[in-house]
């Protein structure tokens, strides 16, 4: 079987996980932007208890989450290319986002848990299956 045919026949099956990561990244980015906007414009929505938030106040966390969210959406689109820089930024951004949500967790625990879950899915898909899209080229 020729090299060209093998390459073509396998591309469809193998790029799946990276596309999944890209879509998850766009989704978690949109979540983040929503969390951030809510923190900025409707902060009574959050149920912060006496413990408060770590390090920053709600407004600062709002801007951080909004920024991370927009970056994540952009990185998600870049991830469709399978470029190495996009994969590295995706993993780094997802890891940072996990830490941000750890600190933000007391504001809305279940939201933070969802964001962390999706971030780990992104990291898993990109690290374990990330080289597949680039090879398909």
């Amino acid at each position: 079987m020729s090299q060209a045919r093998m390459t073509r026949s396998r591309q469809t099956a193998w790029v799946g996980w990276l596309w999944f990561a890209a879509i998850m990244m766009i989704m978690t980015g949109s979540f983040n932007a929503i969390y951030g906007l809510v923190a900025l414009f409707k902060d009574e929505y959050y149920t912060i208890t006496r413990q408060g938030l770590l390090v920053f106040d709600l407004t600062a966390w709002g801007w951080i989450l909004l920024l991370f969210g927009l970056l994540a959406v952009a990185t998600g689109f870049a991830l469709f290319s399978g470029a190495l820089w996009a994969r590295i930024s995706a993993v780094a951004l997802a890891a940072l986002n996990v830490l941000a949500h750890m600190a933000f967790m007391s504001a809305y625990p279940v939201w933070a848990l969802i964001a962390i879950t999706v971030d780990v899915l992104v990291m898993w898909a990109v690290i374990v299956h990330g080289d597949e899209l680039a090879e398909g080229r």
Partner: protein
Amino acid sequence: MTADPPADDHPHPTYWTGWIAFGAAMIMLAGVFHVIEGLVSLLDDGYYLTTAAGLAVDVSFTVVGWLQIGLGVASLAIGIGMFLGATIALVAGVILAAVSAITHMATIAAYPMWSVVIIAFDVFVIYAIVKHGREMKLLRGTHNAAPDLSEREWIAHARR
């Protein structure tokens, strides 16, 4: 395709180390998590939902804090070791992830969600190492063998 699969000494590093790289990333992320928890335990234990008396074991938050910082630093070191391909790091990673899960069970009352997240991370680390750690051995000393198969061909064979 009826040809024999390629010999075992041609695994491609990128593919075979994927799970280990993931395990390493997760243990390092858990490590940073531990350090942050440790700092909160030491400096701001009012942040927690319970006082030290409410924990499953009788320890002060100061002890818990130093333990968490120690676990965190060790996790980061082990993560780096895993990226570098050290076998000892794989063994240490499993042990440390198990210890981390047990300590977080003991301190779950302080911040249940954090403990749940960390225990989940620990499980990922253990799975990645136990299920896929041996693939590192396949790789060792063989990746200079200049395989004449492309990576995609190898993956296709490995998956079959």
